[in-house]
């Protein structure tokens, strides 16, 4: 058992560190608002520089502009970027999820057209999956794309939780193309230019008052026939690829979000020592224990990845642990520092407001526990009322049940 770099990894780390030493002067601040055009353009330029240095798309194949390396090298790059206190790529969703999805399912033309500008930050991507009535039950999406006589598609519907939607150039959209087959079968994935006519984007204000997410409305949006990714009717399979990459990102991503035992301990330490009661110590100990566990769960996951295994749904449990431990940390820090902490301008006040939503990001905790129970432990599935039923009929049954 060894947490150290192999000689090859150490050489790679040195190369990344040297590159960052030479370029960090060009980097914008880590924290800034993407509403600010100047900051946004500085972040685009920085992503371009990272890509040119081989620090973006580490796991992408070389033929698509990546470095063709493994998840361990990705972690090394993330660690060094964190240590250098510079921002990473602006478009984490594009580089982490949508690019790999295009690489896996896109046509040669799509890859050639999109991957370069995506990787270099010239064109940011967003994910158009969730809808107001399709989140955990993602295959229930109702946005529909109808094939026109001229071979184009006409798109109508609404998406939600669209991170970066207001400055994205393209979106990866899951839409229903056939309502007469069961719900998983009638879906297709599309590339949508976000400046197309008929698209309306509206910020969705969260508890802390900022709008990180958007709602996106589609009203008779016309898409060309070559907008389809992975074939008509194969949308669910394409979406699963994305969800798998997402699971990996979220499972390991807690520390990148700053949910670290040491940071929370520093916050408690800075409160008056009269607040350090036995009860406070035990609460801190419990949540710190959970976060330390997740750190080593990440190392275990990297070990399996390096051995060629694919992370299973149990990676989602690391997310459950992380979010709940961070929630407990927020409660504790507010208790020892008092109500002033709740100001969203305060780093922990912001976190406290941010976490209730994060709990459902990438699937609610309840649906994650269902998935793990069924896929990992082999527990029996809940009886389902939607199996094998054409989507159209399912919807009319729902309407009847409500009436």
């Amino acid at each position, binding site marked *: 058992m060894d947490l150290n770099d192999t000689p090859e990894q150490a050489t790679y780390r040195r190369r990344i560190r040297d590159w960052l030493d030479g370029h960090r002067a060009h980097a914008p601040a880590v924290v800034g608002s993407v509403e600010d055009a100047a900051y946004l353009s500085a972040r685009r330029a920085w992503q371009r520089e990272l890509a040119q240095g081989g620090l973006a798309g580490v796991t992408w194949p070389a033929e698509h502009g990546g470095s063709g390396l493994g998840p361990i090298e990705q972690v090394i790059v993330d660690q060094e970027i964190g240590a250098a206190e510079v921002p990473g790529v602006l478009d984490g969703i594009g580089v982490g999820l949508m690019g790999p999805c295009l690489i896996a399912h896109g046509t040669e033309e799509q890859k050639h057209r999109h991957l370069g500008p995506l990787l270099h930050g010239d064109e940011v991507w967003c994910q158009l999956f969730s809808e107001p009535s399709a989140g955990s039950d993602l295959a229930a999406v109702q946005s529909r794309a109808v094939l026109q006589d001229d071979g184009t598609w006409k798109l109508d519907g609404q998406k939600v939780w669209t991170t970066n939607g207001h400055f994205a150039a393209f979106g990866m959209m899951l839409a229903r193309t056939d309502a007469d087959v069961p719900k998983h079968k009638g879906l297709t994935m599309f590339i949508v230019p976000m400046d197309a006519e008929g698209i309306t984007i509206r910020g969705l204000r969260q508890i802390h008052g900022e709008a990180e997410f958007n709602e996106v409305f589609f009203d008779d949006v016309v898409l060309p026939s070559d907008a389809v990714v992975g074939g008509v009717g194969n949308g669910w399979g394409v979406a699963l690829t994305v969800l798998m990459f997402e699971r990996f990102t979220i499972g390991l991503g807690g520390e990148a979000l700053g949910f670290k035992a040491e940071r929370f301990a520093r916050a408690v330490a800075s409160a008056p020592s009269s607040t350090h009661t036995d009860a406070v110590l035990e609460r801190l100990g419990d949540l710190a224990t959970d976060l330390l566990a997740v750190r080593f769960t990440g190392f275990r996951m990297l070990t399996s990845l390096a051995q060629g295994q694919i992370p299973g749904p149990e990676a989602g449990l690391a997310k459950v642990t992380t979010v709940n431990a961070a929630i407990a940390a927020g409660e504790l820090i507010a208790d020892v520092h008092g109500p002033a902490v709740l100001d969203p301008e305060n780093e922990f006040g912001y976190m406290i407001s941010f976490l209730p939503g994060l709990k459902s990001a990438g699937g609610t905790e309840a649906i994650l526990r269902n998935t793990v129970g069924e896929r990992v*432990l082999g527990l*029996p599935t809940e009886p389902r009322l939607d199996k094998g039923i054409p989507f159209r009929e399912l919807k009319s049954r729902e309407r009847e049940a409500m009436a």
Partner: protein
Amino acid sequence: MNLALSDEQEFLKEAAQGALARVATMEAARAAIEDESQRPDLWPLAVGAGWPGLVIAEQRGGAGLGIFEALLIAEETGRALAGVPLLGLLPATLVLDAARDETCEAVASGERRPVHVPARPAARATDEAWSVDAVTGGGRGPALRARVSGGTAVVSGAAGHVVDAPGADLLTAVAVSESGVPICVVIEAAAEGVLVTPVRSYDATRSLAHVNLDDAPARVLPVDETVMARAWYFAQALIAAESLGAVQPCLDMSVAYAQERFTFGRPIGSYQSIKHEIVEILRLMDNARSLQYFAGWSGESAPEEFALAASAARSGAGRALAFASRALINVHGGIGATWEHDAPLFFRRAQVSSRLVGGTHDASSRVACELLASAGTP
């Protein structure tokens, strides 16, 4: 980075499973509840497997293995609820080996069985002193006291619920000298002034005793305070590994029952309330396993983090077993709370483990103390 077990570690684990499979440990655990004299003596099994010498250096007759390997074995004995006296033994062998003590060979060969009287080190960043588990009540008791003269000392004081103490040949302990300095000692259990009083344990697979010392003659072991603290944290990591091991059968039995038991025409595992409770066992178990890696890794490669890691492992595994032993009963319904089922054996193990060697809650607080000390403020 590589957290995979080496071939040797896999072999050690399989050998432990093989050795334990030859003993009907569950039946023995059940029989011992009714009659403690039915508790099988698993010391010969431990000796046959080479466990007494596990962390003793090869030149002193041991196997020269590390904390990580010890935890792998403790996980297996925990899984089988086997009353193998590792928890008292291994921290004792750690201090004897660090002192290059003359008893090492006899201990490694199984001829003499030592047991460590756990003493909790002073917390960093507070002025708390060394302490032992109290004889009465669930709190801390004062550390043993020593009057030192050269290489020998006389030791007095009492420690409660010392694991594996009944029948031990040697006691290792930490005692505070008249000048307030902690020293490490080894005491012949048969010596005058040593009283080892067996205590009936709710978990019949655990052998416990109160240890009373009244001017007991002792030899001072030439080890520094770091080693004495390491013995405490080693015990924390070991009880964590035993607990983690015991969680797995709780999970397996819960899953199996939830698949085969039907109510209202459905297997009960299809209900979210049951499913989620079982998944919670898996979540806590997975966290505890990660923390065992942290403890095992730091024990070898990052000794400055061992106090944090071992305390976190104890906290995580203790909570996992406490939850799992109750969930196992909940999933089974009333039958799980009867002797018709093995669930009570795991419940008893969890209840007692939570309170030994400082207790689970104390370990959580110690995690906080370690982190606050590193953060630079008391």
